[in-house]
């Protein structure tokens, strides 16, 4: 695997390429998603990239009605809420993600523990294209 710095910038680059990547400490095996360049378990800087399988379960979530401006640009508002959540990955770590493919107007129907599959949401075009980590029900 190519050597990119273990940084948020690299993490975002990988998301644009459709990969959910973390860093693993070669010394003690600790796994970090998003990546860390310094292992906070043993303070080694000897890290390697690992790709997540993209499978997980919903740990916690919210359905947001009062959206920040960048989400309003994407069409979300008080009538069109969206869901954001925390996902337990199969690899044993958690990530923050958009939760897609659920009805955010019916939060009662969204259940903690439901199995999820990774999805990459792209917004905009060219240089300014943004990619958001998302998960959807299997």
């Amino acid at each position, binding site marked *: 695997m190519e050597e990119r710095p273990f940084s*948020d910038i690299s993490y975002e680059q990988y998301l644009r390429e459709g990969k959910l990547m973390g860093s693993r400490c070669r010394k003690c095996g600790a796994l970090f998603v998003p990546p860390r360049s310094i292992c906070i378990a043993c303070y080694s800087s000897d890290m390697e990239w690992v790709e997540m399988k993209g499978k997980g379960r919903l740990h*916690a979530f*919210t359905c947001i009605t009062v959206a920040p*401006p960048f989400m309003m640009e994407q069409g979300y508002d008080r009538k069109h809420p969206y869901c954001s959540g*925390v996902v337990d990955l199969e690899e044993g770590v958690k*990530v923050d993600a958009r939760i897609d493919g659920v009805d955010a107007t019916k939060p009662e129907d969204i259940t*903690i523990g439901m199995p999820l599959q990774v999805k990459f949401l792209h917004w905009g075009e060219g240089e300014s294209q943004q990619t*958001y980590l998302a998960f959807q029900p299997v």
Partner: protein
Amino acid sequence: MQRKRKLGRGVAVVGAGMSKFGMFRDKDSKDLFAEAFREMLESVDKGFDPNDIDALYLGNFTNDFFIHQAHWGPIISDLIGLAPKPATRTEGACASSALAFREGVFAIASGFYDIVLVGGVEEMSKRTTEEVAEGLALAEVPYEARVGFTFPGVFGALATAYFKKYGANREHLMNVTIKSHSNAPLNPKAQFPFSIKDMMNMKVEGAKKKGKPVPSWDDEKGFLRDPGANPVVAWPMHLYDCCPISDGGACMLLVGEEIAKNFSDDPLYIVGIGQGSGKGLHAAADLTTMEATKNAADEAYGMSGLKPEDIQFSEVHDCFSIAELIHIEDLGFFKPGQGYKAVEEGLTRRDGPMPINTSGGLKCKGHPVGATGIGQLFEVWKQLRGEAGERQVPKKDLRIGAAHNLGGTGGTCTFTILERR
């Protein structure tokens, strides 16, 4: 095991002031701080010369964003005639002024200064709700904001985790809101000095005046269940689970313990002071607890030698209703998973065994973020000195009170214990 914390020199609070909190089109940050400063001057029992103040520590979070002006230390220093003495701004999101308080305490404890003014100010109401949400999200963990989490959104997610783990539900959050609103009418400085019943009557009167259909609800919970009256913000956080957008200022005068009686007949002593930091949603082992609060509590309890059951009342950072439940458990007032039951049983009412947020809390008193930390300590000052008027905690021998302040989504937490001797 942490080394026992202690101050190199005792520090006391000898004066305190707070502006009214609210949304003020016609007042700016300087006006709000001046209001707090004037009250602080009057509160020093034996009087003092403001020229004797050695330094200012001032908390402010997002005036840079909200009103496009940063660097508030010297602006406020000049306002109160302190310049050219040192003025330092502290930023810890919604815990900014609790950090100013700590810096002031440490400056005196080190022996460098004797008399320090600590304060906070924030001016938020000149922006739209969406813009305020964007401004506050500056204090989130970057990965949270990136995927659309707002402040209410993060606490909404914490609520779903708490519900799942302990079997609580929205009705339990309503108990927190109803309790806070029952204290608020007794606080003349509160942004919303109204009970939920008052709010219901206001809605009915408003509808009558406008000739609209008059709504009716069976009781307070009926009102809070009505999406027309209490719309969702970030499920399960609804409007009445969230603190308002506020403007306000607050300050306190700190002095070395050995000179406290030169200023005040009834100084309060800082017996416990703690702080912690947190990692954010994705890195937290358990979303129903905050490690930053626990670290702050360990430091403060460790320093004071006190236990949670020794604290007679406390202000806690109820930016959202669920936050109050999490904090009263993390601070040890109630066991994990028992907070919602304690509130349901009325244990946290003003006349209960463990009064929480007698001021009405952030929910009703208001939350001008940079002023909140010292605003909470102002309530402890009033209560311990027996000056809280109608909302005075009805306990005999009130001696020990505390305040818990939180910044961001749990990134910075503080816990401060004050004692009246």
